[in-house]
């Protein structure tokens, strides 16, 4: 039977590992699609972009969102609010700014309402299709102040858990300048929000001591060296800073300086100079997920996969892997594979060692090869 992409299959015998549809697609091979399906202009493809706005209680998340929703760029945004407590104050504030506001039930997204989130998202899509809510093109989730973003990201991590419909474009953490340092020092949830963020907004700088923002910035940089940090006065930010797909899909989103954080969480970037065999990477991640999945808080990268024309975006959240996506083109001239790991008690050395071991196993040992017939003892 014909293979989907013969050259690729020859180079990567295990390439079907993440393939949606498996061998049935081989019946109708596409000369323009890659082994991971249609090559996409951008990582999210046609999925609904999701922005997760997180931040500790009173950080100013709602103020930030209200300003965004009032701008033309905020039109067509559906907002999901997760309020810890029974009053839903934030929801009341937001309703005037957006036609679509769904208030999740009492509780915290990270612990007991993940199914609420999935149900709410599915309902929103269904209502959009039925025309009972205005058509929206973006979703913003405002988490409760106590939420750990990891389980929220996990919710989107696979097709089964909404990954086919939605794509998390950015996690934005909001932290208040006046008491931000104290919050970070006191609450593990707040540290986790900062560590997992793609962008960090320092709010309420207008009511903070003059030296508070720079001191807070230094601490934030230590916790998360890869995130962009910006100060916002009274929640005002350029909408592009919230939308900002480019920085996520550019090289910046896939590189991070090594850092060791509190709570035994470290980040580092695995860099490979040459094309990487999909099989080696996939088996390495399979093993890592099996052995240390709970410690993989967020893994994301661009791979130069042997046999693929464009870069392949990979993403893992704990035990779950997003379906890989091949992009139409590289974001810059850098053709190296680079994968950012944010993980607990896991080092770059360990991951590199695992990758090397997998490669070694995948490659037949030359010492065990049969010698040529003429060299065998007794051969004529």
């Amino acid at each position, binding site marked *: 039977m014909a293979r989907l992409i013969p050259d690729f299959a020859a180079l990567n015998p295990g390439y079907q590992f993440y393939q949606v*549809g498996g061998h049935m697609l081989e019946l109708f091979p*596409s000369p323009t*699609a890659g082994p991971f*399906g*249609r090559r*996409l202009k951008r990582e999210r*493809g*046609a999925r609904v972009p999701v922005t997760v706005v997180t931040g500790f209680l009173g950080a100013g998340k709602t103020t930030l969102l209200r300003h965004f929703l009032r701008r033309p760029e905020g039109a067509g945004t559906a907002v999901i609010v997760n309020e810890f407590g029974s009053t839903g104050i934030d929801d009341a504030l937001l309703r005037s700014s957006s036609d679509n506001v769904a208030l999740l039930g009492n509780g915290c997204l990270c612990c007991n309402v993940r199914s609420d989130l999935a149900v709410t998202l599915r309902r929103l899509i269904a209502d959009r*299709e039925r025309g009972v809510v205005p058509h929206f093109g973006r979703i913003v989730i405002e988490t409760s102040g106590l939420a750990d973003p990891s389980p929220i990201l996990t919710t989107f991590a696979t097709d089964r858990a909404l990954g086919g419909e939605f794509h998390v474009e950015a996690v934005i953490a909001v932290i208040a300048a006046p008491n931000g340092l104290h919050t970070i020092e006191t609450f593990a949830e707040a540290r986790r929000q900062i560590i997992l963020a793609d962008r960090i907004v320092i709010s309420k700088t207008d009511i903070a001591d003059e030296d508070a923002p720079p001191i807070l910035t230094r601490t934030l940089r230590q916790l998360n060296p890869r995130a962009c940090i910006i100060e916002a006065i009274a929640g005002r930010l350029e909408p592009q800073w919230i939308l900002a797909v480019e920085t996520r899909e550019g090289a910046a989103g896939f590189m991070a300086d090594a850092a060791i954080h509190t709570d035994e969480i470290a980040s580092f970037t695995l860099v490979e100079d040459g094309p990487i065999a999909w099989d080696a990477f996939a088996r390495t991640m399979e093993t890592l997920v099996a052995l240390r999945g709970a410690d993989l808080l967020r893994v994301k990268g661009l791979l130069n996969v042997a046999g693929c024309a464009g870069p392949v975006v990979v993403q893992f959240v704990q035990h779950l892997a997003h379906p890989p996506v091949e992009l139409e083109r590289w974001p810059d001239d850098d053709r190296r594979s680079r994968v950012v790991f944010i993980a607990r008690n896991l080092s770059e050395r360990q991951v590199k060692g695992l990758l090397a071991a997998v490669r070694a196993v995948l490659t037949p040992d030359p010492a065990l090869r049969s010698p040529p017939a003429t060299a065998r003892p007794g051969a004529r």
Partner: protein
Amino acid sequence: MESVNSVLNKSASESVCWNFKLLAHHELAGFGGMGEGMAIQVAKDGRRIMWLAHESAPKNFTGVDVSDPRNPKLVVQTDLPESFMRSNSLELVGDIMAVAYQTQKVGQKPAGFELFDISAPEKPQSIAYVDASGPTSRGVHQLWFCDGEYVHLAAGAPDFKPTHPQDDQFYRIFDVRNLSRPEEVGRWWLPGTREGDGVPPPVRHQAPLLDRGFRAHNTNVYPQRPDRCYLGYIDAGMFVLDISDKAHPKPICQWDNSPPYTGFTHTVVPMFNRNLLIVTDESTSDNASDWPKLVWILDARDERHPVPISTCPMPPVDAYKSRGGRFGAHNIHENTPSPYAWHSEDIVIGTFFNGGLRAYDIANPYQPREVAAFVPPAPAMSPVGSIQLNDCFVDERKVVYTVDRFSGGLYILEMDF
């Protein structure tokens, strides 16, 4: 409390622009009722002209300079000689354009097709006119002209007497290598639809709503298989014809979804590299009374035996059926064999009347996924109160053009998925 119905009615005014970007909208000088003929010419002076057939009189065809897709400019708009005519379909090769003429009633003239020299886009010059009128003919509904040599038609003829008045248009091939003297070189019709065939006429679909005729619609022929015609045949489904001997076309297969579906097979687009056929129905009744009208994906590994494997998912009928006008499949981008047409075997883009323009990712043909939608607001002067997107075309720059059937004219978009 607002009732569900009132919420749904309110939604009728909602427009959708999902993963498309609207670059421009041109109302075509108030004559924005467009048919199903769209083709791109790049003129000798470098201008890119989109030629559009009108759905009905008084206009014949319109040329629009779309060199800058954000700033389209009307170049020329021509008139039909008779109010009972419609041009509906056109195609072009280089600077030669073929235009179909159909009349409202049999016996009316002129009915046939005309060839134009469009080397000076402002002044199209007639080269030849081919008469297809007759006592039982309404002329030409659709034509295909992509190789510069043959025009493939869904047409009546003066010597063709159908067994049923609705079965008047069949497949005809004209050799136009001598542009000033086109010659018919072949024809094929469904046996039983012409008097004297010696076989019984086909069993008709349920009248009156679903009895739309056993006649030809789209007649696509591609350079990858110049010996094949991919023929939509309305209530007879679709055929693949062997036209290696143009004088004697022979059916290789027929695939017909109706009944139990509601007929009017319109277009067959082969995806040669993938062994797939994309087959569209046409919705022809208002308020979705002929629902469902679909885009079908067929496994064509054995061209003698195509097998449907999926359909492109439609938005819920309840959300659209009361918006006014038709709702359902119609034309798709046909991978027209032109250097100025986009060719894709992973994406299907089609028009669905008040369901707008929709794009589907068929990389996995078993599970087509909608990846983009464009449903503009009802255009001014629309008699049905809704958009009725009728046809679409994608140029090699991936610029998407779509037209409204009644008054909206031309919409130009960019794919954003």
